[in-house]
């Protein structure tokens, strides 16, 4: 399925809500849970979840959702999670990714990571300063980081620079950290985001007290 068709599969509002719910969990989600969260009947949720799988946006699997084992534990339930892969649609066509990959390689070859980090910090500060009307989690969500609270810190479920971070992890993760520090500084907020990567997530975490003040 092409990118346009994949993105177009999100046109239905119920489907979009289901997609948002599943991807916000960071773990496989069953049909009942998804139906309840979105407030639709289970068969309707199942229909849309399977459409999202067809579109390549979610992945389906079977898992036991309870710890019960043996007779009476029931058959495994169908569960959904975000599919790997990404879909970009630009009208008219634009390709910033290829150029970004080239530039990242140039920075690496020139040994220019410190300069790149400073530039990322400056741009972060500018974006931060322009974001006064939005909460920090709101700003991070807008920028595609998918922030969530995790026992004392604000973690970021999604790496918005994924392809680049796979290609040049050291450069891109350092630039991302600088960008995040700049964001906070530009907003005039204290605290220092730090590197604390988890497999499959963004490499940066924000201290919690900051997220608290902004959520109120």
């Amino acid at each position, binding site marked *: 399925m092409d990118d346009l068709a994949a993105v177009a599969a999100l046109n239905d509002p119920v489907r979009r809500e289901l997609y948002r719910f599943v991807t916000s969990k960071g773990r496989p989600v069953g049909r009942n849970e998804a139906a309840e969260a979105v407030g639709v009947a289970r068969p309707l949720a199942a229909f849309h979840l399977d459409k999202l799988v067809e579109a390549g946006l979610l992945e389906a699997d079977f898992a036991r959702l309870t710890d019960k084992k043996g007779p009476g534990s029931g058959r495994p339930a169908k569960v959904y999670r975000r599919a790997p892969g990404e879909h970009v649609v630009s009208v008219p066509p634009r390709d910033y990714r290829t150029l970004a990959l080239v530039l990242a390689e140039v920075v690496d070859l020139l*040994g220019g*990571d*410190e300069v790149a980090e400073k530039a990322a910090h400056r741009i972060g500060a500018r974006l931060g300063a322009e974001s006064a009307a939005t909460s920090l989690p709101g700003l991070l969500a807008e920028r595609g980081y998918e922030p969530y609270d995790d026992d004392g810190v604000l973690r970021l479920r999604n790496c918005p620079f994924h392809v680049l971070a796979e*290609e040049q*992890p*050291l450069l891109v*993760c*350092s630039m991302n*950290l600088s960008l995040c520090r700049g964001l906070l500084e530009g907003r005039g907020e204290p605290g220092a985001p*730090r*590197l*604390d*990567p*988890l*497999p*499959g*997530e963004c*490499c940066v975490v924000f201290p919690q007290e900051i997220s608290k003040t902004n959520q109120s």
Partner: protein
Amino acid sequence: MHLAQFNVAHMRAPVDDPLLTEFVAALEPVNTLADAAPGFVWRAIANPDDPEETITHEFGDHLLINYSIWESRETLWNFVYRSAHLAILQRRREWFHRVAEPYTVMWWVREGEIPSFKEAWHRLTLLREQGPSPDAFTFKEFYEPNGDRG
């Protein structure tokens, strides 16, 4: 098949120099992290009784070597770039010289096989002299065990 990785780092000073104090202090926690990481198989240890001792070798002065074996590309990647190891890696310029030639090499080994240091050095040389191939490759230019480009 398991994935062997060998890398060398050119220290800015002898390992007992104050410049490297923080790096040396990070060795034990980072090695403990590696030992417990999913997919970790083996790593070269200089002295089981002293986690801060570095491996002695004949490949050059001020050269820190690191040699380990992992179950897969993904498990090695997750340790190197998706764990607390990343923050150490990010500070590499404080402790190590920038080098233009490749300083890390990977290759596939049979499960249970631990190639010698000489073999590891040979793989790095191969990468430096002939570029990435199924016999000596990198994360960026990766080869599967069957020789396909990853």
